[in-house]
């Protein structure tokens, strides 16, 4: 989205500054690359210092150093459980992408389906999925399946909404290009609707990935003998708050990892939407 290198063409980037400013540009790019790390490190520092300064008890909020220690100490079970959660989430998320795309296209391209399905979907999605997990467990037994389904159920909706909106707001001019060729509805969706909706599809993936993790983890806390959710449950049941936070941190890491994957795909596919420029509203030199 805010990438400066573009798919299929590097010839499109606006000069971000006059040539004389190159050194600054270079350092800006470096800054951009370094910034997430700086933010994270800064956050942890503030946290560590805050916890120590106010001597917050460990069972309230453990210091990052304590969490890292716990992470290292329990690295084997953490990796084991993280792997399980990652797998569950990825599968549920994968199903959600397919389902979200298909249903999004249907809802976005027909006001009948839109009117018929949207309220029901909204209603369903207002329900906390924790409440649905027990039913899934009773139907599918304890294990991976309920977690996958939960990850799916929780994450398809953001995808669906954005795909539907993307399809429904395609500029009629672009649609007419295909219609004028006598294109079938399916072709119009494939050649105009979906490409046009891509930037928003990828935006929705950012949301969907995070909620997919939330979904599989809450399912694991309700009924599972594996996964980060289970690990956090065990940890909290023995007051091991640092381990709980280690589980949260690992989840966050996995979320970011999945985001990076999605981001790479996004940059390849939606460079056109930002014309390969710095995606900002700012002037090239402003």
């Amino acid at each position: 989205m805010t990438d400066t290198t573009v798919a299929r063409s590097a010839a499109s980037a606006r000069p971000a500054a006059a040539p004389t400013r190159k050194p600054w540009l270079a350092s800006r790019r470096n800054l951009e690359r370094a910034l997430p790390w700086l933010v994270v490190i800064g956050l942890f520092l503030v946290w560590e210092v805050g916890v120590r300064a106010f001597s917050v008890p460990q069972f309230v909020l453990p210091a990052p150093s304590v969490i890292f220690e716990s992470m290292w100490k329990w690295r084997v079970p953490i990796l084991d459980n993280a792997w399980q959660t990652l797998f569950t989430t990825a599968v549920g998320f994968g199903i959600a992408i397919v389902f979200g795309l298909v249903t999004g296209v249907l809802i976005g391209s027909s006001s009948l389906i839109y009117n018929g399905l949207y309220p029901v979907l909204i209603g369903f999605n207002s329900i906390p999925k924790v409440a649905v997990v027990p039913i899934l467990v009773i139907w599918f037994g304890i294990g991976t399946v309920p977690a996958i389904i939960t990850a799916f159920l929780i994450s398809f909706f953001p995808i669906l909404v954005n795909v539907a909106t993307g399809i429904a707001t395609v500029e009629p001019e672009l649609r007419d290009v295909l219609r004028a060729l006598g294109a079938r509805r399916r072709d119009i969706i494939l050649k105009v609707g979906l490409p046009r909706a891509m930037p928003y599809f990828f935006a929705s993936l950012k949301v969907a990935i995070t909620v997919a993790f939330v979904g599989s983890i809450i399912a694991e806390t309700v009924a599972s003998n594996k996964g980060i959710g289970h690990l956090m449950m065990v940890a909290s049941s023995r007051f091991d708050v640092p381990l709980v936070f280690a589980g949260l941190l690992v989840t966050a890491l996995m979320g970011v990892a999945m985001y990076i994957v999605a981001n790479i795909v996004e940059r390849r596919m939606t460079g056109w939407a930002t014309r390969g420029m710095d995606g900002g509203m700012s002037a090239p030199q402003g």
Partner: protein
Amino acid sequence: QTNVSFIMDWAWQGPQAFALMARNEGCFADGGVNITLDRGFGSGRTPVELATGTYQMGLGDLNPTIRFRAENPDSDVIATAILFAGTPMVAVVRADSGIETPADLEGRTLAAPDFDAGRQLFPVFGAAAGFDHTTVNWMSVSPELREPMLVRGEVDGITGFVTSSVPSLEALGLGRDDLRIFYYADYGAELVSTSVLTTRAFAEANPEVVATVTRCMIRGVQLADADPDGAIAALVAHESLTDPVVERERWQITIDDMLRTDLVVAEGISTVDMDFLQRSIASVEDAYGLENTLRAEDIFDASFLPPAEDRMLLSE
């Protein structure tokens, strides 16, 4: 009037009604305490809430507090009264499962939440009943899935509190006759249960307040024991979602299985045998693999109790 915020051990149910009776009688107010009674989220939460200062006093099964103290040596959560001396911890199996004695549980699968006290103190049960608890397989489920798992036969048994599991199973269609219930206490597990908790710092700063709250909680148990229906009525008035029939039964189970131990009937509520308590602490520490460091006097302070004659049960 001193403000005290008090957290219960669980949602407003039959076993929690007594506190409302005491409040309705004006016991706290008369003693100069303006008490706020909030629902709780499990006995494990209470010591944490007290240690963080979110609440000044609370109610909870003593075992998680023992563990909390042992694992956080700096903390100073103490009990000022043990309201229910009998432990509600049980293992429940179906009567037709072929499990006749606790030893038959070996190699079987039990369902319970990770934080379930019955599951966490299962080693105490195993040691007392003389079987190898390590051969049991556990299935981690949330509380609302525990009993359905047993009903649907997906596990051989569950652990939990008799006050919660038995009414739940009845609601799911398994009456007492369909069940075999192993009370941990029946096999010699030396455990106590629901206690009035606070921090030592608060107790030393506000001895009268703590004494009043402790006295009134005991008073509430006396009242609710003498007038169970009145207790449920108070409960319904407080929590409009109450189902009186179920809660009446729950309270009755609490009275029968947890409150009226021989010692309490003979000498009054919160009559504590310190040797028993010390052994109880040791067994909890053993169950969690902790060193035996906590002394009974450190965690139970009898000095806030009213005199024994004010602690006798009113009924009979």
